[in-house]
């Protein structure tokens, strides 16, 4: 129940280091090569800079395969970055000694897309949640574990008496609530939601989104909300970053990006989103992208989007556009951004 002004001050305040900062992050996978030679390198994330401030929700949108999930996996340490930095409160995660890193792990939690695959089927809900406290002793004293499990389940809208059930006894939405409860158990300051509501049906999705919003208001957690669903991102986020083929092409406040999309890709995405939401005025034209996303193995020279862009010119082939505010109100990586979409 915070006022918009308060939310504004919380997201914009302070010039101190942001909660999470990605600096020119590159994550590459090496493909399996043939006999005696190493395989080609796929740069799934090809230089991404992004920050998330305390209590803020940042949306990361893009098509499948654009590197959104790789960013999530890199931040939480499941994948090593090839170059660039992941800074949490100004501390480089790659440079930290292992013990401090383990401590920091509790500050960043990840909620996975598939609630059916992300909970250990052999552990009860209580055991799943308590495991967090076994790994990070000191958060909750052992004699209060049962009590705390009940209050967490209550917090995420599950019945506390179901603590002794197994994951398979719950529905998808309930399991996602369990995942959230498990993430909350370590009192994180940043939760990364990797397509966390994509596998849920629409009514359940809304419930989970409202739950996430509520948690942010009450606990002040920040979210990095990864999704391909523009409607969902519009619903929950303060700021939005649009990714294409491993790079951010446009980033800005929700209002700015949704009302004045400047990158041709963002425009195409927004025009393709089937939605009854309020950001679309009736008269916007449909932009249909031709062709497929190029292989990240061999991305186009210059601007990565030029092969599918309706505005592409020679300059787009020769020179890679940087992410800059080009009179568009927010940074955009395009040589010919539309400043005033008709």
């Amino acid at each position, binding site marked *: 129940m915070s006022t918009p002004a308060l939310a504004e001050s919380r997201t914009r305040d302070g010039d101190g280091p942001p909660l999470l900062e990605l600096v020119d992050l590159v994550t590459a996978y090496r493909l399996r090569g043939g006999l005696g030679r190493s395989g080609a390198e796929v740069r799934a994330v090809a230089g991404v800079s992004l920050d998330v401030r305390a209590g803020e929700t940042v949306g990361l949108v893009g098509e499948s395969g654009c590197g959104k999930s790789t960013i999530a*996996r890199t931040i*939480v*340490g*499941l994948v090593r970055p090839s170059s660039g930095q992941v800074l949490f409160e100004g501390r480089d995660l790659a440079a930290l000694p292992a013990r401090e890193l*383990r401590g920091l*792990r*509790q500050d*960043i*939690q*990840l909620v*996975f897309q*598939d609630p059916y*695959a*992300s*909970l*250990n*089927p*052999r*552990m009860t809900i209580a055991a799943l949640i308590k*495991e*967090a406290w*076994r*790994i*990070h002793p000191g958060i909750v004293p052992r004699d209060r574990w049962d009590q705390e499990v009940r209050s967490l389940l209550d917090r995420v*809208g599950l*019945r506390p008496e*179901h603590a002794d*059930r*197994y994951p*398979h*006894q*719950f*529905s998808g939405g*309930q399991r996602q609530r369990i*995942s959230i409860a*498990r993430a909350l158990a*370590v009192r994180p300051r940043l939760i990364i939601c990797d397509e966390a509501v994509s596998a849920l049906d629409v009514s359940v999705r809304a419930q989970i989104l409202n739950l996430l919003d509520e948690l942010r208001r009450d606990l002040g957690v920040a979210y990095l909300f990864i999704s391909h669903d523009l409607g969902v991102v519009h619903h929950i986020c303060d700021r939005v970053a649009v990714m294409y083929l491993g790079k951010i092409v446009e980033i800005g406040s929700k209002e700015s990006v949704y009302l004045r999309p400047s990158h041709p890709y963002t425009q195409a995405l927004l025009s393709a989103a089937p939605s009854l939401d309020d950001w679309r005025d009736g008269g916007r034209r449909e932009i249909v992208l031709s062709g497929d996303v190029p292989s990240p193995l061999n991305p186009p020279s210059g601007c990565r989007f030029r092969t599918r862009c309706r505005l592409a010119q020679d300059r787009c082939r020769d020179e890679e556009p940087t992410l800059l505010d080009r009179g568009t109100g927010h940074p955009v990586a395009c040589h010919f951004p539309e400043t005033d979409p008709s």
Partner: protein
Amino acid sequence: MMPPKLDDPLPGRTGAIVRRLAGLPPRAHFALGMVLLFVVAGVLGPLLVPFDAAATSPPDRLLPPGTRLSDGAVAWLGTNQVGQDILAAVLAGMRTSLTVALVTVVVAGSVGLLMGLLAGYFGGWADGIISRLGDIQLAFPSLLLAILLAGVLGPSMLNVIIALAVTRWVIFARVVRGSALAVRDREFVDSARVMGASHGRILIHYILPSCLPPLLVAATVQIGLTMVAEASLSFLGLGVPPSQASWGSTIAQGRDYLASAWWIAAAPGAALALVVVSIGILGDLLRDASDPMTEL
């Protein structure tokens, strides 16, 4: 927001086990009964009908089954060429066979489990070394390797166990490695990593439980095969020392008398065949029961 109504798996667990046992096919009842009978016979039999490898009784040589002996007892399975009761020899051999098979499978299974977990979970050079070592070893016929080892180490029960365990661990390691490989990149394992769980915790709480059912199936099958291998070694004189009974050495004793006193070789041979077939049936049933679709 009512959760789906499902039976809780924990209460009434024994009841569920009894119900499942009753629903098994007849061959399962046969196999289970046979294995239980042999285990009981192996444990209790030698206490009732003691076998002394050094004791001979010349008047009772080569008597057919059911004959009354000079001391008044009945030799239900006949006697051998030095007048020893075949029933006592088979029962004592049962105990040897059981001991060797169980200890071998436990030892080889533990080593295989550890190696398989390391190879499957960590991959990389650990996997490279363990898998190549296994491949090299599997290139030799396992019995030949066992004969070599047993021959070098000399006849004793411990050496038989060592020789057989060395030839068996690879099979367990491969089974476990496969399971560990399949589960280590699952999302719920990633979720534990994100939580900050150590490798040890992930191995024990996440990887191990998925590896145990296939390991159990492999172990059951291997118990039968190890019994055959032990009998083979003893048949060749490389197994347990002559002071201990073994089906293999009893069969070897009967080899020269197949035409005149068939029961010497037939009794332990039939026992070996029955118990190995029964264990094989149980292994198959276990394999069916641990179908990956029903497992999770």
